[in-house]
């Protein structure tokens, strides 16, 4: 038989436990409600600079394109230039066979097809195309937009997120009265002042959700990603809003971003 003091103690313990339990239930409900209707919304913008130069063909593509052009040539008809060249060749041959004493002046006036071809070849030689690999490629300067011309480059910035600095796509928190797309555009214009980009559509391309453990009391976060095409301009770090930036390819993303963030980037960066 327990002593009355013990019983009292036990009862009190039970009571407090009960209240704790009910309080927890109420709290759970509140937290659940918060998660359902009140996550903090963020909008991030993925600015993509598309390739400026075609990618190198693979072996199969190279071989097949060669064979296709050969077949096309075989099945084609003669062009005006080729007809002219053939006619002149035949005329030249016939002139050679026949011992002639023509007036020398007459031949010098006409421009033959072969002359034209030589002229065109020499004209082509005077032109030098820009090289496909730039000095930025050699130096490996990751801030340069002229790097890796045959691949897509994505803009990453070093931004303070949740108190710490991370390499992320430029993001901003949603403010009341604007759409998520406007938030994304605001993120770009406020953080990367001079960059011009066309956002592709009103709908986000992916979402990253963060649901904290229930009794933490933290709010859930939803980060919506928008895709944009780069039209011109580069990041200006003098404003002080971003400490650093980089234009990197999709293979280099893992060098910069956190693994959990990269997981979400893979949903729309291919």
């Amino acid at each position, binding site marked *: 038989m327990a002593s009355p003091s013990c019983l009292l103690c036990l009862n009190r313990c039970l009571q407090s436990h009960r209240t704790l339990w009910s309080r927890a239930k109420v709290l759970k409900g509140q937290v659940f409600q918060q998660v359902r209707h009140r996550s903090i919304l963020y909008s991030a913008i993925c600015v993509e600079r598309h390739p400026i130069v*075609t990618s190198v063909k693979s072996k199969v593509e190279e071989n097949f394109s060669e*064979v296709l052009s050969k077949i096309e040539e075989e099945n084609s008809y003669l062009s005006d230039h080729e007809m002219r060249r053939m006619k002149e060749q035949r005329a030249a041959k016939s002139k050679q066979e026949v011992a002639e004493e023509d007036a020398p002046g007459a031949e010098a006036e006409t421009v033959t097809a072969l002359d034209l071809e030589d002229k065109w070849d020499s004209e082509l030689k005077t032109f030098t195309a820009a090289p496909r690999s730039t000095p930025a490629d050699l130096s490996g300067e990751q801030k340069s937009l002229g790097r890796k011309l045959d691949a897509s480059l994505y803009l990453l910035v070093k931004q303070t997120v949740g108190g710490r600095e991370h390499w992320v796509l430029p993001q901003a928190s949603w403010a009341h009265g604007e759409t998520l797309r406007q938030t994304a555009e605001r993120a770009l214009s406020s953080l990367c002042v001079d960059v011009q980009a066309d956002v592709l559509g009103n709908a986000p391309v992916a*979402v990253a959700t963060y649901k904290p453990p229930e009794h933490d009391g933290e709010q859930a976060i939803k980060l919506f990603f928008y895709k944009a095409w780069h039209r011109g301009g580069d990041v200006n770090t003098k404003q002080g809003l971003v400490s650093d930036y980089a234009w990197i390819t999709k293979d280099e993303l893992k060098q910069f971003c956190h693994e959990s963030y990269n997981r979400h980037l893979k949903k729309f960066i291919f």
Partner: protein
Amino acid sequence: MTGPGLNLSRLLASSLQGLFQTHRQIHTHGAPLLFKATQQLLAEPMKKKKRIDPSILAAREAKKIKKIDKEIKKLTRFGRILKPVAEIELPKKQFTLAKERQRTAPVLSFEELENRALLQKQWGRFKTNAWIHQQRVYDKMIAAQDEALEELKAESEYLYQEALKVDYGMVAMRFEGPKSTPPIKDYAPPDGDYVDTTRKY
């Protein structure tokens, strides 16, 4: 006794009935060889020519003349404008598919043909794999967007409806694909800049 027109067979039969009663008029031919008073007539008789009011006739003629005058006027106005070169249609066969323009068919060795066939198979496999990969990418992109829209809907109906709206600004968006070499900065073409002067209707 068939056929229109006047033939004398009936007359003959009726007039001579009394005289030659014993004779029977049996004709084994469909149309016995008898004289015919008129030609074989097979058409309907001519219609009567109606008199037309001369004023109406004159009006008809005037209309024809007016039409031709109008066309002459039109030609004199537009005839001077030359057809744009892009619209000139040359007789295709004469200029491009003439026999003299055909190449001599090259003789391909057996190895070359085999190589070509094998390369086509290889290409087919390559392209199929590329297509399958691309379809997977599309599926992933669509799934990601659907997930995003679902989460947004759970958050706010207003924002969700805004996200679903069609962006008509995208209609005017233009994009130029990659070339084989990058553009040269401040390049001055030797022939000058190309300005398109095609007439837009």
